[in-house]
């Protein structure tokens, strides 16, 4: 776990640190960056799914024997923050094949320098669902908080939201927690700080650029 009450941090095993070494390195080419990010995303999604409740279910095995099993409870959906968050959709699909995925586009307003909502497309019944909010980097938390507000306005219960990211900064975690104390952040790494340009430091660069462009 972590020192933050609202954060579920993946166990910092050598294996995980090794994966991060690859995606952090500026020498890593895009194909490797994508491959190893996807491996980490998969671990985040598994961790997120583990938070969902189950209920008892009796089944019959092929041998005709009854077995007391459990069944996944509740519907889920993914909501990605365009564009970097979309990189995490495949990881979610790898675990939940037909999961619904909503999108939110947030960009910095040129005049106010504040994040502004440009577009949202969410499932109609999102209020009944568990929501995995997908955005790989939690720096200041500005766009994540705006996106979360959108979700809550659409009737999603805060305790049913899980915010998945690969790398978080303490400033972002604290700001997000102050605003949404009930929402769990699931992350694979917490870096020491933001630098003077509000970038995660040491970080891994611009995730969207590295995943899609460079």
């Amino acid at each position: 776990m972590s020192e933050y009450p609202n954060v579920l941090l993946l166990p910092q095993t050598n294996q995980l640190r090794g994966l991060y070494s690859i995606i952090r390195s500026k020498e890593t080419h895009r194909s490797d960056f994508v491959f190893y990010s996807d491996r980490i995303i998969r671990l985040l999604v598994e961790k997120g799914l583990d938070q969902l409740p189950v209920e008892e279910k009796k089944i019959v095995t092929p041998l005709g024997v009854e077995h007391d099993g459990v069944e996944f409870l509740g519907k889920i959906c993914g909501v990605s923050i365009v564009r970097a968050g979309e990189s995490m959709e495949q990881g979610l699909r790898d675990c939940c094949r037909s999961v619904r995925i909503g999108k939110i586009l947030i960009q910095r307003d040129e005049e106010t320098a504040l994040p502004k909502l440009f577009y949202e497309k969410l499932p109609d019944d999102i209020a009944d669902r568990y929501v995995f909010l997908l955005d790989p980097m939690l720096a200041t938390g500005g766009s994540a908080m705006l996106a979360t507000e959108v979700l809550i306005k659409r009737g999603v219960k805060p305790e049913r939201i899980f915010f998945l990211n690969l790398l978080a900064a303490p400033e972002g975690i604290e700001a997000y927690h102050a605003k949404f104390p009930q929402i769990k952040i699931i992350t694979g790494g917490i870096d020491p700080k933001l630098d003077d340009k509000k970038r995660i430091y040491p970080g891994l660069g611009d995730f969207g650029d590295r995943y899609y462009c460079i």
Partner: protein
Amino acid sequence: MATTHGPLSSGDDEVTTPRSRAPATNREPTSQDITTKEGTSSDVIQADGDVDVNYTPPWTEPYVIGIAGPSGSGKTSVASRIIHEINTPWTVLLSLDNFYRPLTPKQLEMAFDNEYDFDNPNAVDLDCCYECVKSLKGGHKTQIPIYSFAKHDREKDRCITIYGANVIIIEGIYALAHEKLRDLMHLKIYVDTDLDVCLARRLNRDIAQRGRDLQGAIQQWTKFVKPNAERYVKPTMSHADLIVPRGSDNVIAIDMLIRHIKKHLALKSEAHLQKIEKLTGKLSFTKENYPNLQILENTHQMRGIYTILLDRETSMDDFIFYFDRVAMTLINKALESCTEYREVVVETPLTAMKSVIPSSKFVAVNIVRSGDCFMHSLRKTLPEVAIGKLLIQSDATTGEPQLHTEALPQSIDDSNAKVLLFDAQIISGAGIIMAIQVLADHGVKPQNIVVITYLGSEVGLSRIMRAFKDVTVVVGMVGYRDNISKEPWFRKRFIDSKYFGT
């Protein structure tokens, strides 16, 4: 020529066909051997922990048969009949023709003039044959020379590699002439056919199949073959346990012979099974008792997936999907437990920082077919890993595991490579123990082996960890002894059947 009977041969089909028709029966010896064990629990408890237990694979105790007799007496047909009838994987036929000594230039000249005496006992390197059989008995991968009759020399760059022989048949006129070689044999047979009949057969073979002329063939016979047969071959008859007159035409003798061999092979496989049974541990699965056992955390997701995989209503599509998910988690867990790391400085786009990167190399080995269920997930985790295959099947009647074929990648020779050994289910543990032994025989250190499995019975898992204390075992769900009567699926192979739909 040495032939290995087993991999992809007709015998293989005969073993598998009845099983694929009735997949629920006799796949593994488990239900039976689990219950028998309960009865003998008291001595097992005492043995657990203090006494060193070892696994002896069947190929370190191969059943060795020697077949001697004059040229043309029918040794080869007798050997073929035995191979056909016993139908055991890894039956190796070693012909003494492979062990002719390389010739000196002078002898070579004589040989091309048909003047060299190939039927003299000194022409055959029986010491070399003895060394080969001894090495096979030691469980080693063994190189058998190939002799070229065209060049009258051993092939320089080629030889036959044999590993894991279960039955070895040594066939040749001097098979019983070497004392130490004889001592390795369990059954010594002499095929005694009238020399006139031998000559007739030889002429037939030499002229029809080897393209010799009649005169040359007869000259060879009178000058070398016959005198040697009388002088050197015939006396070895006294070492035989059994003399078969008239070769393979002698139906009664062959029948008795085969019954005798089958009886001994049955005893041998029973002894093998008993040794596996003796490995069973009684200690509970705690970190202290089995430090190398890693059981997946029983989270909501794992319980849900387990339920889906066990449900008979689950479609094949869903089964594959959910098995792949759990396979990925198991592989990640295995990598976590075995990968070694070194410290590095990573340059991120902003700055440099200390971190680690993996320093281990990996090789994967599948036990066909249930290990194949992991391959999709393995490719998504370690896309470039080399994959070896082992086919080990349980005998349909006895349940004894038998090694049918092994194809291991070169990279397994790297003594630091971690070997990930996959099998979807561990029931009696017999197959996987054999697989680990195969890897060990190829020079893999047990501490570099990680067994990855989804369902494991407590009995099977305890046997693996007691036979090989340094092997790491990663398992998804454990079928505990006390529960196993309520969880019969821990005793049946079903994962690969459902995953592949056959």
